[in-house]
Structure formats: C-alpha cells, structure tokens
C-alpha cells in the first residue's frame, strides 16, 4: 500500500491486535474502518483499573503494552509525533556514540 500523502510504501503494524498501516516516509498512519474505535475501546480498557493508587507513590505509566519509566516522556506510549521527531537530528543520534 502506498501513502496517499507522500507516496512512500506503508507498513502494517499490529497494535494490541489492531492492524494499522504506517508510512515509512512521513510516518503518517492509516486506519481501516472501525480500527479507530477498536483502539479507543482498548485504551479505555487499559485506563479503567488505573486511578486510585492508595499506597504506591509513583504509580506506573499509561501504556501496559510498553511499560515506561516514571521520568519518561508524558505521551511516550501514544505516539503521533514520532514522524515529526524522526528528523535529521534523531536519525543522527541513532548512529552515534
């Protein structure tokens, strides 16, 4: 499948059982009919048992699929900005000591 925006090939990823297509060029995401609803439903399931942390001071994070440290980026589990951030500077960082 080709990205409607930049024409680069799109790759399929499985996010909690939902197939999503992500563009290898601009990192934009394509969702089939009903997939957004599936993701939203899954997300609300994850969040339901979360709120009251009576004794634990640093309650863990948002996304059980990929646990993150308490100091992690606030939206570390939800993506959306990676295409934008995977710019030259991070590309370079991936390859340097």
């Amino acid at each position, binding site marked *: 499948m080709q990205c409607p925006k930049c024409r680069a090939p799109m790759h399929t*990823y499985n*996010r909690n059982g939902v197939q999503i297509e992500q563009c*290898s060029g601009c*990192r934009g995401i394509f969702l089939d009919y009903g997939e957004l609803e599936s993701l939203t439903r899954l997300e609300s399931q994850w969040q339901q048992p979360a709120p009251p942390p009576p004794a634990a001071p*640093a309650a*863990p994070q948002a*996304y059980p*699929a*990929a*646990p*993150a*440290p*308490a*100091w*992690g*980026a*606030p*939206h*570390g*589990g939800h*993506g959306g*900005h*990676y295409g934008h*951030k*995977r*710019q030259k*500077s*991070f*590309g*370079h*960082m*991936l*390859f*340097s*000591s």
Partner: protein
Amino acid sequence: MTADVLPTLAAKVRAAVHPGASVCACGTEASSVLADRPDGTVVRHADTVAKAHAPGTDPGELAARMAVAAHRALDGVLLAPLSPGTAELHGRLVTFWPYGTPVDPETPEAAPWEEAATLLARLHRTPETVLPSGLPPMRGPAKAARAIARLHAAGPHPAAAPVLRAWSVLPAWARDEASMPNTRTLCHGDLHLGQLVHDPGGTWLLIDIDDLGRGDPAWDLARPAAWFACGLLPPDEWTRFLTAYQKAEGPAVPTDTDPWPALDVPARALTVQTGAQAIAKATAASRALDEVEVAVIDACDRMSAHPPELAPGFPT
C-alpha cells in the same frame, strides 16, 4: 595527529589487501575513510578495513578484547578480526577487519531491531569461561563520565543544570566512580545502530570492540530504552527490540515482568550522556538545541522528581 595517520593507514590497508604488490591490483582506486574521529580512524580498501584505535589505547586491554572477538564462541555474534594481532602506526594501535555493510542511515526505520536484540542476548549469554582474565570492564560508564567532563569544559549553558542534577543522583558505578556490580557478563558497551553490519550472506553482526568488557548487560539495552523514554523512538520499535531480546533469553531483563527496574539506571545514564553531548556540541557550534535535543534535556529534568530505581532482586 589524525591527519598523519590517515594516509599511512590507507597505505597499510591497501598493503593488507595486496601483500607484496607496490600498486593496487584490484581497481579500487582509493581507500575510503569510513570514520575519522578522536576515538578511532577507520579506512576501507576493497573487502578489508583497518582501524587505528584512539591514542592511549591500552595494548593489553585491546588484546583481550581482540581475543574475545576472535573466539569461536562469538562466531555469528561479533565480527571476527582478520588476524587477532595488532599493528602499530605512529604510536596508534591498528587492527584489521573484513568489511561489512552497515545499516543505511537514510532509512533508520528499516533498522534491524530484532537482529540487534538477538545478537546482544547471545553476546550476554557468552559463558564466563570464554572471557580472558585480562578483559577489562565495559566502558559504558566511562563514556558517560567523559560526556559530563565535556559538558563542564564547554562552559555555562542554561540546559546544563538539569543534566548535571540527573547525573549527580546516579549510583557511583554508573558514574564510573566505583566498580560495576556485575563483572560476569560480556557487554558491548556502546550499542547504537552504527554498531551493526551484515556480511555478504545477509547475516548481521556486532562490530567495534573498543568498549567491550564485563559489566551490567542492561547498559547495552539502555540507549534504545533512553530513546523510547525520551519519546523519540516509537513504542512499537522499542517493543520489537525488547521482545526479541527477551525471546532470545537475554539475561539483562526479566522475561515476563516490567524491565524498567533493571533498565532505569543505565537508561538514565545514557539520557544524561546524550544530553551532555548535545549541549557541548550546540555550544561549540554556537547554535540552539534542536527539538530532539530538547526532548532529551526535558527527560533529564523530569528525572529529579523520581529517584533512580534500585533494581531489587535482580542478578548481580
């Protein structure tokens, strides 16, 4: 100094490819420079690569690291040198390697995360009996400490405070001020996407033994972990990497519970190291920090609200 080493190193690698011939016989006009940095100069001619290691490299430590790379137990994990010995050139130690194709920097999204993780798991599972007695600790914490020294040398910068604050609360071993708690596990010491090459058959291997040694294997997972925690590496790529490592039974993290108690300290150290380098570079170039660098500094800033985890009950 490097300017002197380059042409001689090029001649040396050419001579290694064509021993006894005064001219190049393979039609490869010039040798290509793969890297020329203070920590190493790397020149390629045809299928052979020569590396001049950093000035001041300890010959005994390099020999022990070479012995590990040449050991049959590391076949298919670490690129093996063409010969286990070292040459000397203008006071620099030189080693010879077969050329391997690196990850294409233009398509980092095609990065072989699973392969990288599986190679690390196999590296970490190397039996201790394979490790030579002279094998030093891996140099991860030393490199982090060096980045902090560079930050200090760069002069004052508004973003330096959160980086130094995050550094100051790390345990002494992570700051290279005490010996490492784990000395039984073989670690790479400087994993990033530039440390993978594939041979003509398409098999991926780890390269660069300069920081290889004994230590906490979580350090080798900590750079991708830090990128993920800073919100730079997409969660799916991080998950692919981590899951492949767990599947290959790597010892750095538990296979079925939260990996972060084990990853926390090394991932903080790598985040701090990256932030310190970013500030030093930006200062040297008289430019502002870019968006990616700011994301790293922000992560350092958030660390002060959460003291490091102590990795309870984890093998030392």
